[in-house]
């Protein structure tokens, strides 16, 4: 493959350099109906799961067909989406904040044709390419991160855990039977790229072994002071280490009982990897939300301290999630988010109804605020 230059000249990088131009301006891509009615929408209706209509003061109607997808997308797949958009939407579409695709149409009959078309599109493996749904009181797409596809710190994979989970929750992607929105998010390490800390159900990759110390290279590859400063629990201290060959080098030592495996040291220092087949796995958190509807936003709470990585489909994890979803669906009131439900019935009941075991790991012991999560009242349920 011959190198083809874009015109960039390495010897004169600044030669007619263009920079700081930002993104393309939003209104370049507005469908005509949006451009015309922006800010003048009156109301909307969800005609069926995945199909919305927004009605403007002008009387105009904008139809939206929302489709799920793996946000890990090939250009081949994107081109197919473009074909569809050109066929039904004059080439207009958008993506949602949860990585769903939205086809924007200007008439109802186009909607029906589009739905039929989408129903037929499947990958060779048999999965749908663009399943319609993700609206209303259902379960939408899972916001997630890189995992083993691209990152250096994951404790699990992202795309795989998401695929396995969405297969189990698929019916509810296409349905509105939940008491309220149920949002599932996934992050492959504590950095939590995404909003897993405030999701109805959060899948979190977690390490359980302190960093290995690559003494021989540590001082060469890392700024030791930065690694030490990175540790939130001050578990790392400088130390001299004698190598097999008798040579002593500057390195670090880790107080293992102080480590909670956040991986922040590794972020700063490649010679402190945490990844381990037995150590790594999944933490499940539930009850978070970000909307300000009725109750204030809530953090998700840790309800399962650890589930091993079971490639390729994580059955223990998906069974547990399914159990939580069904318990919530059976127990919550209309409009009640998972966290609101758990607080109403009390967490002691939540564990009972979801058939989850409560372990000491679930009691907060991180810094002063931990106290506020213990129970300072005689009120409890047996």
């Amino acid at each position, binding site marked *: *493959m011959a190198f*083809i230059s*874009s015109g960039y000249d*390495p010897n004169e990088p600044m030669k007619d350099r*263009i920079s700081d131009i*930002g*993104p393309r301006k939003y209104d370049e*891509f507005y*469908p005509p109906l*949006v451009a015309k009615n*922006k*800010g003048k*929408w*009156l*109301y*909307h209706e*969800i005609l*069926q*799961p995945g199909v919305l209509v927004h009605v403007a003061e002008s009387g105009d109607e904008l139809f939206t067909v929302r489709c*799920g*997808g*793996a946000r*890990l997308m*090939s250009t*081949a797949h*994107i081109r197919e989406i473009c074909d569809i958009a*050109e066929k039904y939407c004059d080439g*207009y579409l958008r*993506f949602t*904040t949860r990585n769903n*695709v939205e086809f924007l149409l200007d008439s109802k009959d186009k909607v029906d044709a589009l739905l039929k078309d989408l129903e037929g599109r499947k*990958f*060779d*493996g048999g*999965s749908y390419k663009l399943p319609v749904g993700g*609206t*209303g*009181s259902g379960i939408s797409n899972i916001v997630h*991160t890189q*995992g083993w*596809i*691209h*990152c*250096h710190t994951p404790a699990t994979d992202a795309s*795989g855990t998401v695929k396995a989970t969405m*297969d189990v929750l698929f019916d509810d992607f296409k349905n509105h*039977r939940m008491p309220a929105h149920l949002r599932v998010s996934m992050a492959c390490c504590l950095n939590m790229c995404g*909003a897993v*800390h405030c999701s109805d159900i959060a899948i979190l990759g977690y390490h359980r072994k302190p960093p290995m110390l690559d003494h021989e290279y540590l001082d060469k590859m890392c700024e030791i002071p930065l690694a030490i*400063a990175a540790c939130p629990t001050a578990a790392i201290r400088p130390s001299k280490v004698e190598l097999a060959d008798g040579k002593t080098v500057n390195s670090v030592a880790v107080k293992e009982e102080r480590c909670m495996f956040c991986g922040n040291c*590794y972020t700063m220092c490649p010679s402190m990897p945490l990844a381990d087949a037995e150590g*790594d796995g999944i933490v499940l958190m539930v009850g978070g939300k*970000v*909307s*300000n*509807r*009725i109750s204030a*936003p809530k953090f998700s709470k840790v309800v399962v301290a650890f589930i091993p990585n079971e490639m*390729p489909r994580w059955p223990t994890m998906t069974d547990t999630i399914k159990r939580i979803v069904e318990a919530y669906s059976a127990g919550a009131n209309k*409009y009640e988010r998972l966290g609101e439900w758990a607080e109403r019935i009390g967490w002691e009941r939540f564990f009972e109804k979801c058939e989850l075991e409560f372990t000491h790991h679930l009691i907060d012991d991180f810094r002063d605020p931990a106290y506020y999560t213990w129970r300072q009242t005689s009120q409890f349920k047996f």
Partner: protein
Amino acid sequence: MAKHETPLLDQLESGPWPSFVSDMKQQAEVRAKNEANTEFQIPTDVVEDLLGVLELSYKHGRTHWKHGGIVGVFGYGGGVIGRYCDQPEQFPGVAHFHTMRVNQPGGKFYKTDYLRELCDLWDFRGSGITNMHGSTGDIVFLGTTTPQLEEIFYELTHKYNQDLGGSGSNLRTPADCVGQARCEYACYDTQDLCYTLTQEYQDELHRPAFPYKFKFKFDGCPNCCVASIARSDISFIGTWKDNIRIDQEAVQAYIGGELAPNAGAHSGRDWGAFDIQKEVIDLCPTNCMWMEGNTLKIDDKECTRCMHCINVMPRALRIGEDRGLSMLVGAKAPILDGAQMGSLLVPFISAEAPYDEIKEVIESIWDWWMEEGKNRERLGELIKRQGFQRLLEATGIKAVPQHVQEPRHNPYIFWKEDEVPGGFTRDINEFRKHHLR
């Protein structure tokens, strides 16, 4: 047949949800066939090797990517995440596998011709694998080699009038909800504010000068569809000051069952007939609603604009007309000090272009953070460390009860010397005249 056996990944092709494995395999094939005769600038079998290394991770239960390397484009401190495989011999196609973050358009609206241009570029100079979109909001080009970085940047800017997004200790790519473009609840133009600030702060976005990353997110109303309150150092949430507009006839239509509550969001189950008392009035967190005969009343002074009643009866209730936004600060993921949500700093500020008032607040926050923030200390952590009062001083905002959920319950007040008559210096011997040892 495939370059690498992927027995574990293959099991992720079944099941109804779109399979990323199937998609990658289709991409591998497309590249192998190369019907478009693209002169691939990175290995043709890059996707095969990506499948291969991923399969290996499934086997080992560990990632096979090395710790990020520092690569980028000239003059920018962000936009590229360097990545190298830790098994390059086995998977040469992904030996280099850097990502580029391309700043997405507002509201993530696209026209296909533009999308196709991006695809052409990425097939030509990269793996053809993307994330639509990354968690921050960017279009993520997943996987290319170091030499291609400048080429891609050059073509993006010269051919497509498109810039990179943020990474590193920069302003990160701002993101917005669909807002006024397609939502009746939007209290301000999220796309315009997002775009204006993105352009205004291009330098902050591309050239690291901050202690750590900094994020903006723009939600048109308290429903928070872009989750700004959970994941942006400054969260802009639309709100209003005046009254919720009520269409009493429509209220009756909901009561009468002609209109489906919550726009049909609950259609999947029979919840029984709509009961405005139970479903709206009793769930109002401030109890500021009631029925007077057939008219729905709202004591707007007590309303906290939680959106519930409006969400349930969008055709009967509409947001107020005296609109603006609230600014909340400090949201972040748990590393290091524990997660934070945005804390209310500016209860209400107008959101009309050119947004000068808003820029003033932003810049006074940055000045303080750049002055006081430690390396890798997020704004929220600085506020926690120095106290909310310091933030108020830095921004010149007066303390109001809206700043707190509840007043302090510890009386440990740090009085400043100038606040206390007589100051702090005292004469012990004078004191001892009246108080023997």
